[in-house]
């Protein structure tokens, strides 16, 4: 890993066209400004697993529109039953 020390206002340039600037440093966080070409995707590290989940979720929807998974059908039935039962419970009180 390439390690470099920077102060507020100082920049790092990657591949000649991606610039990172240290905007602010607090006790526990630093604020970075990033300038990159539109084709370069910039994401937080913690968003990477969510990105993989989202891609899988979108692909999964298109393959499950015709036949709804049994667990999902059971869930919707449970939710429907709960929403029907709720007013009955209120009336009993």
């Amino acid at each position: 890993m390439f390690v470099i020390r920077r102060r507020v206002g100082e920049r790092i340039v990657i591949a000649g066209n991606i610039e990172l600037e240290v905007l602010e440093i607090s006790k526990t966080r630093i604020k970075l400004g990033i300038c990159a070409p539109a084709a370069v995707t910039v994401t937080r590290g913690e968003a990477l697993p969510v990105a993989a989940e989202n891609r899988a979720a979108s692909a999964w929807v298109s393959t499950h529109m015709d036949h709804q998974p049994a667990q999902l059908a059971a869930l919707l039935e449970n939710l429907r039953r709960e929403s029907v039962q709720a007013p009955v419970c209120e009336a009993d009180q």
Partner: protein
Amino acid sequence: MPQSCVLRSTSLGELEWDAESELWFPQGLPGFERLSRIVPIEIPARRPLVYLHSATDASICFMALPLHSIAPGLQVELLPDDYRALDLDPAIEPVAGEDILCLALLGPTECGVIQTNLSSPVVINLHNHRAHQLTPETGPDYWRLDDSGTWEAVCS
């Protein structure tokens, strides 16, 4: 007069909606960073499922459920960046159902079980239709759907 939009979806067929009903994701979604316009769609027979369909790409669609239908009482914690993305006033805590709506995206596990990550819901500002998916540093909170249609937390 609201602008009417039409798209032939690969998963939902012919879609027609008013542009005003679209959700605006200023940062896109993780994995779909250029996806900024999304149409929320409900199919009456499948309520409370919500389909979040791209307004521009016929093949991109997500399935979601209101967070409270999976984990009633669960509070989402919004960070300053989330307030900014949603254009919410950081001085006022938004009320779920009045100011914001939280939707959990549904997806598959490797073995085909339906799963959701409750720590990364899509949050919608109900006042301006801006939306944003949370990606907290605390990591995922996976819940899986069993055969009886009941959610179970996945122990890590």
